[in-house]
Structure formats: C-alpha cells, structure tokens
C-alpha cells in the first residue's frame, strides 16, 4: 500500500516491519515523532526515558535480552548517550539494535549543529544515511538484518529535512521476529579491561567486513549519465539537492551506507570524472575520506560549499558560481519580525515578567519553551547551554560571585522534563558542594516544546497508560534541599514573595512554579488539582483603560493596542483568563468576562 509519510513516520514504520519490540527515546526536535509513531503499536513496548543515556541503555538491555530494539534522539542527545554507545559498539548485539540520530543542519530548533556522522567513525559503528522516506523504511529493515549478521549496533543518521519531509512509501506487513534466547556471556557483555582488549581486536575485524559490505551495498550506487565528466558524491537529502541542480548533466555516486565508506567504489567513480562535487551538510566527512583515497580528479568540497547550514539547491548554485533563479526584489524595510513567543496563557509568563525586573542577579537558563524568555519583553535569561545545565552552571557561577563582594545571586530556571532529564544530578551537586542558588523548576506538567510528551512527572507513559507520578517536591527534599515552595506562577505576588524570601538565603532553595501548559490535553488529575483551568476570559473595560500600555509589557499575544482609540483590547479567540495582565494594570481596567 502506498502512503505519504515523513521520514520520522517511515523510520517507525520500518522498525515495526522489521519486528522491533522495544523502543526508547527522549523527545527532541526533529526526532520526536519516531517514538510517538512507534508508541501507536500496541505490540511494541515504546517508552519515553528521562534522558538519552537511559534510553540508550534500555535499548541495549532489550537487544542483549533478545528483542530487536531501537533508540532515537536528536543530535545533541547523542552526546548524552555517548558513554554507553561507545562500549556497546565493542560488545555487539544479540538481537539487532538501531541508534537513530536526527541532526539539525541550519539549527531550526537546536543550540548547535554538530555532525553526528563523526560519532559513527569515533565509536566504530555501521551507519546508514537515508535520503527520503522510502529509504528510511528500506535502510531500517536492511540495517536490522545487517546488525545481526555482522554483530553490530548501527546508526541511522537523519537530518531535519529527512525527518520532516513527506514522500511516498510502500508499506508492508510486520515480520514477527521471535525473541532470541539469552544466555550469560561474560566474554561478550562484561566489559572488564581484559575482555575489552579482546573485543577491541574483534571490532577491527568486524569493521573490515563492514568495509567489504559497503563496496557492494545496494545503498551505495553509481549513476552514470552518458558523456558526463562532472560527478556528484552525496549522502542523505543532499543527493536530491544535487539532482535538482545538476539533473542528468552530472553522474552521481549516491552514498547511503556511510560508515565504513566504500573506498574502491569511490576510486572507480572518481577515475571516470574530471571534477567531482561533494555535497554534504556540515563537516567534510566524505570529502576527507575521498581525499585520503588519492583520487586524481578535481574535488570541490568545503573550499566551495559552506560547512554550516543546509545544502539546499540555492546554496549549491550560489557556492558553485552557477546562475541563481531570478527573484522578485521588494522593500524589506516593510517586514516585521515574527519570532516565536510564549503562548497566551503560558504559565511561564508570570514568572519571567517578575524575574526579568530583578536587579543584581544572574539567570542561568535551560532548554525548553522558556528559553524564549531570553528575548523581549522579559530579557530574563543570561545563559543557555544544554539540557539540565541551568542548575550546575548556576552553581559554578554562584561560587565565583561569592568570592567577590558583589552580593550577586544566581537564579536557575528549567522545566519539569528538563529537571528529570539531567537537572536532578545538577541539583545534587549544588547541595553536595554547598552553593546558595535559587533554583526554579517550571512544572507545567508536560514536555512542552517538543509537542506534549509525557514524562516521569505527568502520571502517564508514552503509550498513554497510567503510571507512578514522581513527586517533584519529595524528590527535591530527598536531595537535601531544605527550602522548597510550590507557587502558582500566574499569581505575581506569590512569585515575588517566594523570590524575596529565597534570594535572601545562604542555602540552596527550590521554587516549583506549578501550572499546566495551556496547550496540554488535561488529565483528570489536572482538572481536579487546578481550579478553573483556562475556563475564563479577561476583558478590558474601555472606560477605565487609560492607554498606558503597561499590560502589553507582559508580552501576551492575546493583547492588541488600538492606536486610534488609545485603548488595549484582548482578543477573545486567544485569551484563556490567566489574569497576569490584570495584575499589571495600574487602574484595574482588566476584569473577568461576565
């Protein structure tokens, strides 16, 4: 049957058809939908792990125990998961195992654009790079067979455009793979130095066999066009970008199995060309290998194409000195910015509105919707690095501020899911090493930014079944935090009182701001806990409004200033009655709709 699927949907489909029984992931754009689609199959165990390392280890355990397994993550997640991954490469599998990395050339929703193909080389893991959704299915299925035949986990390296582009696929039935037997095998699975030294040698032997596979893999293929002396070597979606620009005027070496790379195939292709364009996003991963092969044709790589961003057809044309398509020029001064903003009713608004007004503090931020507080109108974030870093960066900074006499305090902010991810161990560090930071956990009862995935604090698992809800307050107290307050972030006085009290302390403290994400599908527990959950609307009384626009400084998309009337209006279609604006109005002009 033919279907239109995104690459993410196709990866999940391929894994399902390949008989995968266990899947784990931590959500991260552009990889999130892989696990979401896997979770729809009731004959698969699909889990959200608290972080990528835990997800990787769970998938390793499942493969050792005898089930085909997969773990998926965004590119930066692989940094978190790298520790088990590098040793897992030594061990080899029992049932097949796939590690999916979704890289982000162009950084649409990420803090960096690292090229995770380098991980395959560094960890010595087989790697596939699909170019479209059909290849996602084909490579996943072939990859699991290869994984078991060559006794190796494999990496599937996706990029945003492969993850989030739809193309037509042919789907087929699931191949029910029976569970493999498990037997103790310390020589394979207990990586003590004496054992690892043996496995290390075997790893090289395996790589030599995989290099042979690479030469004849159906995913590495040359396409020669008559008389063409111009070649293109490309992997992933760059193959299609190349085809878009060069069409049948060039010959192509399309690489889909990219670690180990096929040396002979590359030499043969290059021997027939005068010049070769290497189209790859980010690092010169293929280019460096091609140059090592000692080919004699002219190679155009990163000397011509940028090492950052996407290698879209327009970038290829401009970089290669080809004529760009004619475009309409217009008056760009008429454009207004449309950056993303906190939603109307976002429970982060009240906190950041007040926090941004504090002087003499450093605000150490984290990864989530709340990172938007770094911009106007809040200006309430001074650093953002990676998941869970807010608390530990804040700790180090506080220690240094305490060396001087500025009296500067550090406030750290991170979301509930980010806290469970790696914030917990950061907070342990703060307690153990004794700094006096104020740590704020924005508990909106869901993983928001990536599109509402459950986490250990929501009470539901990835497949929608009820599960134990981790009590954040108890957890924080168990770590040794003595000063804990749970506040409603929509109540500005409550926010201020908690900040005043805790900023004055010489010990570490935690404020939990607790109110659900406005876009969340509320559980019965949410409805029971939170009164009038977004069930009301606010309005501006035009007779009272003095047009001072102070309410606009809360940065709510539901508010509009009517310049001709010098009044603010609240858009009924957007307002959900959080009342933050009403608490800011100096003349009490904002009231509940009757």
């Amino acid at each position, binding site marked *: 049957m033919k279907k239109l699927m995104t690459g993410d949907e196709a990866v999940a489909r391929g894994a399902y058809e390949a008989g995968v029984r266990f899947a784990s992931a931590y959500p991260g754009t552009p990889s999130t939908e892989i696990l979401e689609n896997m979770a729809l199959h009731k004959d698969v165990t699909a889990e959200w792990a608290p972080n990528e390392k835990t997800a990787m280890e769970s998938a390793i355990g499942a493969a050792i125990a005898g089930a085909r397994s997969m773990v998926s993550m965004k590119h930066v997640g692989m940094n978190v998961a790298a520790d088990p991954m590098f040793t897992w490469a030594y061990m080899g599998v029992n049932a097949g195992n796939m590690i999916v990395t979704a890289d982000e050339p162009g950084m*649409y*929703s990420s803090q960096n654009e690292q090229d995770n193909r380098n991980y395959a080389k560094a960890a010595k893991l087989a790697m596939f790079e699909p170019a479209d959704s059909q290849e996602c299915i084909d490579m996943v299925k072939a990859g699991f067979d290869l994984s078991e035949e060559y006794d190796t986990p494999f990496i599937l390296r996706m990029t945003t455009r492969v993850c989030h582009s739809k193309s037509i696929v042919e789907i087929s039935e699931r191949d029910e793979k029976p569970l493999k037997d498990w037997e103790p095998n310390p020589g394979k699975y207990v990586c003590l130095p004496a054992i690892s030294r043996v496995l290390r040698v075997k790893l090289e032997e395996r790589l030599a066999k995989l290099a042979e596979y690479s030469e004849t893999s159906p995913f590495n293929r040359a396409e020669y066009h008559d008389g063409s002396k111009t070649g293109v070597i490309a992997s992933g979606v760059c193959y299609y970008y190349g*085809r878009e620009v060069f069409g049948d005027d060039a010959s192509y070496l399309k690489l889909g199995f990219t670690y180990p790379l096929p040396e002979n195939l590359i030499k043969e292709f290059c021997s027939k060309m005068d010049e070769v364009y290497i189209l790859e996003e980010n690092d010169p991963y293929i280019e460096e290998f091609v140059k090592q092969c000692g080919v004699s044709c002219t190679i155009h790589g990163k000397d011509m194409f940028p090492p950052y961003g996407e290698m879209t057809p327009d970038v290829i044309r401009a970089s290669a000195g080809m004529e760009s398509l004619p*475009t309409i020029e217009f008056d760009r001064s008429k454009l207004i910015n*449309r950056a993303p903003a906190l939603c109307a009713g976002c429970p982060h608004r009240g906190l950041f509105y007040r926090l941004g007004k504090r002087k003499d503090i450093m605000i150490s931020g984290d990864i989530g919707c709340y990172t938007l507080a770094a911009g106007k109108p809040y200006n309430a974030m001074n650093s953002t690095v990676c998941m869970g870093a807010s608390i530990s960066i804040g700790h180090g900074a506080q220690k240094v501020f305490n060396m001087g006499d500025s009296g500067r305090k550090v406030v750290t902010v991170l979301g509930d899911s980010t806290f469970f991810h790696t914030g917990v161990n950061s907070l342990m560090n703060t307690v153990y090493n004794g700094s006096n930071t104020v740590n704020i956990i924005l508990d909106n009862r869901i993983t928001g930014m990536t599109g509402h995935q459950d986490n250990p604090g929501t009470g539901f698992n990835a497949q929608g079944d009820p599960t134990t809800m981790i009590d954040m307050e108890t957890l924080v107290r168990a770590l040794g935090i003595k000063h804990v307050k749970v506040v409603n972030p929509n109540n500005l006085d409550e926010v201020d009182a908690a900040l005043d009290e805790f900023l004055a302390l010489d010990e570490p403290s935690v404020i939990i701001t607790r109110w659900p994400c406005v876009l969340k599908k509320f559980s019965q527990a949410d409805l029971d806990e939170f009164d009038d959950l977004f069930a009301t609307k606010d309005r501006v009384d035009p007779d009272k409004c003095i047009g001072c626009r102070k309410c606009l400084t809360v940065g709510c998309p539901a508010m509009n200033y009517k310049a001709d009337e010098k009044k603010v209006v609240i858009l009924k279609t957007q307002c959900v009655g959080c009342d933050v604006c009403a608490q800011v109005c100096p003349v009490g002009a904002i009231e509940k709709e009757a």
Partner: protein
Amino acid sequence: MTKSILLVGVGGQGTILASKILTTGLMEAGYDVKMSEIHGMSQRGGSVSSQVRYGDQVDSPVIEKGAADIIVAFEQMEALRSLDYLKESGTLVVNTEKIDSMSVIVGDQKYPDDVLEEIGRHVEEKAVDATKIAAELGNPKAANVVLLGTIIKAMGLDQIDWDQILEDNIKPKFVELNKKALRAGMEAVA
C-alpha cells in the same frame, strides 16, 4: 515538470492541515509528491511554511527562491516575506488577514498599512478575505480550506475528487462546511 506550491502563514492558522489534504490528493491522482515543513520552535506564534512539490518525479523536497509556481499566504505580512520565493510568472494568493507579531504588540515595530500595496508593486496578487468567507459559511477556522480551494483552482487540479479526500481526512461533522469552503475558495480566484 515539477510544480512547486508554497503555503505560508502564522503558527496555528492551519497550513499543515491544508498541505496534508493537498498532498494526499496529489498522491491519489498519481503524482510523485514531496512536502517539507519545519516543526518545533517555529510553531509558537512564529512564521510557518509548508513546501509542496509534485510531478512525474520530484527531487528536492524544498522550494528554492524564485521557484514557486504559486504562493498562498494565510496572512499579509507572510506574503510579503515570501515574495522572493515566487517565480516571475508565478501566482500569489493573499488572505487579507493581518496578525500582529510580538514585536508589534510590545511596541517595537509598527505593522505597515501598505503591505498589499508593496506586494502590488511587484506582482498582480489575488487578495481573498478567506477568514470572512469561512465565517459566512459558519466557522472562520475553515479559512485554511478556502485557501486550499484557491490553490486547486489556480493550479488546475479540479479533476481530483477533493470531496472524497476531505471525507477521508476531516472529522465527519466538519466535512460539509469544508466542502463548501473549498468550493468558495475555488470561486474566489475563478
């Protein structure tokens, strides 16, 4: 010959559903189809776009500047922002709705009054008040399907059984409204 359709708007306007229905119809009509969207951060009230390409065999899933056969903008400012993606001979349909961005709300920037005039200096755009048309049919949220109708008419895709595709992809209670919205959109650019 590959055709390129660019849908642009503001997060929450329904560009994704419109492009889903469009691509499903194109696939069932036998075309090769690719569609590209960027998810994630952009959805929080930011600019969004769906890029749809179809033909006998489609290579790149993304549309480059100067290559769109048609741009359908769900919002005026987004029409202007995307203008350099339009082919010189391409069609531009603009929903006349204006949505203030955060920089306008907080007073950093002013939404210009002459966006349509600026567009008109460069192309003969087709302005459609899709939100009003949809509201008159019973629900302003069907504006996205009104705009889908304009694409179908402008690209000559009327022969595809869109009623069936709407029935397959939309909740039953909204099907009749959306069928009307689709036809209203087709008539708006006829």
